[in-house]
């Protein structure tokens, strides 16, 4: 589990840094390498708390790279690798804080299977979306934005309901 999470961070860092470097965006490459390094050290030391920050940073860097003209496909790959690493870090933390874990291998295997499906579908859908070209009028764009905000509120509501 730890090795897979480490490999995901390594892959995300490598892809993002090389993509930025390919466009001579050295600052972005440096920041990506720094976040990747910190993330790896955190994994090695067992410090899982800043993982949320790393993921947010990674998404920000991917969006910035796509905006700056870096290959969106590579950005997508880097972001998905970071998402997987974030998920595995959180899973490791859950196992660690759970006290006694019954059949941890089975739990890990089930989680990896679920994650692999999600990552695979996300990757395929992402690449399909990158290949599509849709012209949106301002009204449609506004509708999509409204939908995004509505979905966000529903997601937050669902999260709160689950906690109660």
């Amino acid at each position: 589990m730890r090795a897979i999470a480490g490999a995901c961070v390594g892959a995300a860092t490598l892809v993002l840094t090389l993509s930025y470097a390919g466009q001579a965006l050295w600052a972005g490459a440096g920041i990506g390498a720094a976040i990747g390094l910190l993330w790896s050290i955190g994994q090695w030391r067992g410090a899982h708390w800043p993982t949320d920050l790393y993921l947010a940073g990674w998404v920000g860097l991917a969006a910035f790279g796509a905006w700056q003209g870096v290959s969106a496909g590579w950005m997508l790959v880097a972001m998905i690798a970071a998402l997987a690493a974030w998920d595995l870090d959180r899973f490791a933390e859950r196992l660690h804080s759970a006290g006694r874990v019954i059949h941890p291998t089975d739990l890990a295997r089930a989680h990896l299977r679920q994650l692999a499906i999600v990552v695979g579908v996300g990757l395929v859908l992402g690449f399909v979306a990158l290949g599509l070209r849709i012209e949106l009028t301002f009204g449609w764009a506004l509708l999509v934005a409204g939908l995004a905000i509505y979905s966000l509120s529903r997601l937050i509501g669902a999260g709160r309901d689950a906690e109660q």
Partner: protein
Amino acid sequence: MHRWLLLSLLIAGLVLLGLGAVRGEIVALALPLLVYAGAALLGRPEAPKLEATRLFSAERVARGTPVTVSVSIANLGARPATVRLEDQVPPQLMLVEGQTRLLTRLAPGASAELEYIVVGERGVYQFPGVQASVEDPLGLFRATALFHSTGQLFIVPEVSRLRRVEIRPRRTHVYAGQIPARQGGAGVEFYGLREYQPGDPTRWINSRATARNPQTVFVNQFEQERVADVGLILDARQQSDVRTREGALFEYSIQAAAALADTFLHRGNRVGLLMYGRSLDWTLPGYGKLQRERILRALARAQTGDLPVLEKLDYLPTRLFPARSQLVLISPLQAHDADMLAGLRARGYQLLVISPDPVSFELRGLGEQAMAEAAARIARLERALLLQRCRRTGVTVVDWPTDVPFQQIAGTALSRPPIGLHGMAGAP
């Protein structure tokens, strides 16, 4: 930050940024995150349908004895569930082995067990319930519920049985026991002489007395031994308690009360317990092992209190104790208690006071300080005067320096009849 909130913000940020910058590829970057959130949302757990049961290896143990707690949880739902279980252990108990938390995946109808060992100090511990959370497969959403699998653990004080405690109440019961009844009859100790009556055993004939009076035959009389009523009064007033780094003086009082109750009950007496301080906590008098258990459980939950009306012993409900019975007060004693004790004596009660010494106890907790030593000398003088006042009214007082085990002090001070007690009580 909650994971679902972070994901939501990232997705919304990417979509809005992509729309604002009119860059479709930025919107496309949100898709994997959307898929992740959607998958978690689809597997979002419902309220857990679980059943929890808790078992103790023993529901009543002595202080320091390890207790194994087993919590079993069963999935009553129709779907497999990843269950995170956390037993709510009272914070005063110390976990010595095992874990109070568990993570497992439970198939419908399956169950899992959590086992751990705790030890604790004297007290009654309520286990509120088991907190169980069910998670979606990605662990993004969690539904938590508290299951009322209540349990109660009694940790009773340690009981050290005393070899002998001599008491002489003025009134005894009709049943045979071990307390001298101040009446002639069958017994062990010589009581007196009387004229021979038909039916008396010949071995009772006192040949010397008969030889001096040839006209009359004298027989020995022995003191009857009966069981008696013993009322234990535990001083639970907060002002009587002393707390230092080493603990509370009240715990020593508890220890003495437990030992005395056990000893009196073991010898067949009827024993009641009154805890005076936090409230008037009265354990009705009774005999035997059941009463021993009742008293130990009452002592397990004993706490000091500062109820203003019970600041002095003036409101001691003497009606609870049979007239002329034996009372045993376990108290460090306050200056104003002597008058009340004299009053009890005047009403015909035989009174024994076990007084854990608060001065030496507090001094031990303070360590070596010149000022403390001087203050302790004054306090010792005051205490000596107080004990002397009590003894003058006919109260038997045992001054107990708590660094000496109670068994030892009781063995020295209480193994002889109370008549000879006054001179030696207090000697460690």
